[in-house]
């Protein structure tokens, strides 16, 4: 109910917001989809990955390279992006899940760095750091021009709604309940007869593929593909968004992404030292709401919040 309300509010915002915030919110919704993907693995399964930029970039580049170099249409490009995200996350999961804890963080970070360097290495096709702008012709899906602000906003809303409702369904399904139990006490889950390793693998592939979907759509909507999105910064960002919004809550990722986006947006209008303001706000939140915004809401007002 609450989740449908958020979707309805975002739809209403489409007609009400001034152009500047309208564009921002479209971006926030796509990034929040990325945060939702991250939350599946971090918030619900309890695995802290520092390499999710690799999956985001796999979607982004799978789509971008397909459209730019293979001459694919928008639909086929998106599919290629999603497929490359699924393959890359399955490969990384198969190897990285042999470790846990700090080792898992380091292994995922290393894989993401290797991916980042690979993109730079093949600069001839990827245009490296500089990136490339997606041709206008490749951004038309079923006759809709995804570069136009109106369709772009609605496309972002569709993506976000799908990711949100999918997360919600997954978390409520038996599979999701087992993931939460693994986060709480893996050994006990194993002794109840569940193959915890297979559950973790599935969670990581689901999370990586959803991140790739967000990456592919991001490139499609905003028309730019660049190596920055594969850098370590884009691995850290979803972690921050989720921590701020509340790990292990369905709405947290959106709230966190929105909060952080506007925090940086507003503070950069005041001073060039905007990262300082963002940093202070982060420290404040961790001190006074260590479970994030929605985590705090759950703790104080509504224990059943999913």
């Amino acid at each position: 109910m609450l989740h449908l309300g958020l979707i309805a509010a975002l739809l209403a915002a489409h007609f009400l917001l001034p152009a500047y915030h309208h564009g921002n919110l479209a971006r926030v919704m796509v990034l929040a989809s990325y945060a939702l993907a991250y939350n599946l693995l971090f918030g619900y399964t309890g695995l802290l990955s520092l390499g999710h930029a690799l999956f985001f970039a796999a979607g982004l580049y799978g789509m971008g390279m397909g459209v730019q170099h293979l001459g694919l249409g928008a639909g086929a490009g998106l599919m290629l992006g999603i497929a490359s995200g699924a393959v890359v996350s399955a490969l990384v999961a198969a190897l990285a899940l042999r470790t846990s804890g700090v080792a898992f963080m380091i292994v995922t970070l290393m894989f993401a760095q290797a991916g980042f360097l690979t993109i730079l290495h093949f600069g001839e096709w990827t245009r490296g750091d500089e990136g490339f702008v997606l041709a206008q012709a490749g951004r038309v899906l079923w006759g809709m021009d995804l570069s136009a602000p109106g369709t772009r906003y609605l496309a972002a809303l569709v993506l976000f709604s799908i990711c949100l409702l999918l997360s919600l369904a997954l978390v409520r399904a038996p599979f999701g309940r087992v993931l939460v139990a693994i986060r709480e006490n893996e050994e006990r889950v194993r002794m109840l007869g569940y193959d915890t390793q297979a559950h973790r693998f599935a969670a990581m592939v689901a999370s990586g593929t959803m991140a790739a979907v967000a990456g592919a759509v991001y490139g499609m909507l905003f028309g730019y593909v660049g190596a920055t999105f594969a850098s370590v910064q884009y691995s850290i960002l979803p972690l921050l968004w989720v921590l701020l919004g509340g790990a292990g809550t369905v709405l947290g990722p959106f709230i966190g992404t929105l909060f952080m986006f506007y925090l940086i947006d507003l503070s950069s209008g005041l001073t060039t030292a905007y990262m300082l303001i963002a940093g202070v706000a982060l420290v404040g939140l961790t001190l006074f709401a260590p479970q994030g915004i929605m985590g705090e809401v759950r703790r104080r007002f509504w224990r059943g919040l999913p």
Partner: protein
Amino acid sequence: MSLLSVRGLTRDFDGLRAVDGVDLDLPEGEVRALIGPNGAGKTTLVGMIAGRIAPTRGQVIFDGRDITRLPAHRRMRLGMAYTFQITSVFAGLSVAENVTLAARRRVRGAGLVQAVTQALVRVGLEARADQVAGDLAYGHQRLLEIAMGLAQRPRLLILDEPTQGLSEGEIEGFQALVRDLAGEVTILLIEHNMAVVMALAERITVMAGGRILAEGTPLEIHANRAVQAAYLGGGDAADR
């Protein structure tokens, strides 16, 4: 026929032999107690039976099948359940959800709610189904642990020190529960409380120093001088 057989099971920890060539046969339907002083190797032995610890040598045979190489979750699916010595319920989830997780591997759909309720009724926690497990009193958490074991409908239920930290009244409730289960489920009970062991076990296996010291009915064990010397520390202590 034996539901569980263990042959020559051995486990070394860096040169320390925790379990040393243990043979054990557990017939279907029996309630067996496993006792012994601290460090006798009881938890290591059941750890190897349940698949939590890999044996250095030896075999575990369950229902006629060699399961020595099977991972723990596959053994549980064959019909084992293991309740932890240190309470390890999912503290953040509700009581009902804890039991649901245990039951869902076996039943889905309509039967699930019924199976969960049944297990909760059996341990007397049905009124607390919606409470968060971490908020339960310690004794109730122990009972929840047992309910999770029951919800799995195991053929072999391994209870690792189930009465540890329970009050007198709760121990009585636990004994009634096990008597109720006897014949239905094969039970392997690790227990320090001798009164509980004498009251519940059909047979007792005594371990000391990683080996099996004696095996027999409660009366035989009670009268066994070697057991008294190694474990009970003298004849009079047996009546504790």
